C-alpha cells in the first residue's frame, strides 16, 4: 500500500511540475527556466541523498560518475529543455502525453540495441500510444 502511495506521489510530483513550469515560463526563456528548476531539483535531491544514502557517495568510481554525468547531459540540457520549450509553445496538457512516449522510445531502443524482443503487447501498446498522440496533435482549433 505504501508503495502505491509513493507511486501516486511520484505521478503527482511530475504532473504538477509541468503545470508549475508553464506558470513560471511566462516571460522567461525555456533555457533559463530549465536552469532555475534544475537548481531546485539538485538541492532537494542532494539533501535527500545525503540523508538516505550517504554511503553511496563513498562507492562512486570515475566511470560511474562519468556515466551519471552523461545521463545528466542527456536528461537536462537536452531533455528538460526540450520539455520546457514544448510546454511554452503548446501548453502542458498537450505536451505531457507526448513526453509519455519516452517509455515507447525506451522499448524501441532496447529492442534495437539489446536482447529485448518484439511482442504482441509491445506492438499493441505502441499502437495505442501512437493513436493517442495523433488524437492530441490533430485536434481541431
Amino acid at each position: 500500500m505504501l508503495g502505491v502511495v509513493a507511486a501516486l506521489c511520484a505521478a503527482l510530483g511530475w504532473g504538477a511540475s509541468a503545470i508549475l513550469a508553464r506558470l513560471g515560463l511566462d516571460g522567461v526563456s525555456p533555457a533559463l527556466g530549465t536552469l532555475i528548476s534544475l537548481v531546485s531539483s539538485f538541492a532537494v535531491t542532494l539533501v535527500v541523498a545525503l540523508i538516505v544514502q550517504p554511503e553511496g557517495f563513498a562507492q562512486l568510481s570515475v566511470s560511474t560518475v562519468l556515466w551519471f554525468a552523461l545521463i545528466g547531459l542527456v536528461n537536462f540540457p537536452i531533455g528538460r529543455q526540450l520539455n520546457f520549450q514544448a510546454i511554452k509553445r503548446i501548453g502542458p496538457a498537450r505536451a505531457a502525453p507526448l513526453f509519455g512516449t519516452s517509455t515507447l522510445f525506451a522499448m524501441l531502443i532496447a529492442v534495437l540495441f539489446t536482447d529485448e524482443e518484439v511482442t504482441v503487447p509491445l506492438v499493441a501498446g505502441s499502437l495505442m500510444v501512437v493513436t493517442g498522440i495523433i488524437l492530441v496533435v490533430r485536434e481541431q482549433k
Partner: protein
Amino acid sequence: MNQRAIGYGLALAAGMAYGLNAVLIRQTVSAFGAPLVGSSIALAMGVVSLGLLAWITRGGVSEGKRLPRRAIVFLLISGLGSAIGVGSNFVALSLAPVVVVSPITATNPLITILLSRLFLQRSERVNLRVVLGGCLVVGGIGVITLSR
C-alpha cells in the same frame, strides 16, 4: 513551420531524449546501488552545463537580472515537484514491484491534463480529444510495461 507544429516536434524529441535516458539509467543504476546519489550527480551536471551555457551566451545572465519574482518561485517549485517525483519513484520501487509502480507513475500526463483544466483554463483549452489522447497514451504505456 508554425509554433504549434514545432511544439509537438519538441515534445516528441523530449520523449526520445527521456527514452534514451531511461535505457542509460537502467544500465548504470543496476550496477550501482544508490540511485539518489546518481541522480544528484546527473542533476549537478545539468546545472553546471546549463549554467555554463547561460554564462557563455550572456543572454541567460542578463535575462536573470530582470526575472519577475513570481516566475522564479514557480520554477523553483517546479524543480521541487520533479525532485519529489524522482524520490517518490525511488521509494515506490523499493517497496513495490515495477509492474505495480510503473503503470501508476505513467499516469502523470493525465494528472497534468486534469491540473491544466483546473489551473490553466484561461491559457489552455482542454477538450475531450486531448483527454482521450492522454488516456490512450497512458493505456498504451501500461500495456507495454505490464507485458514485461
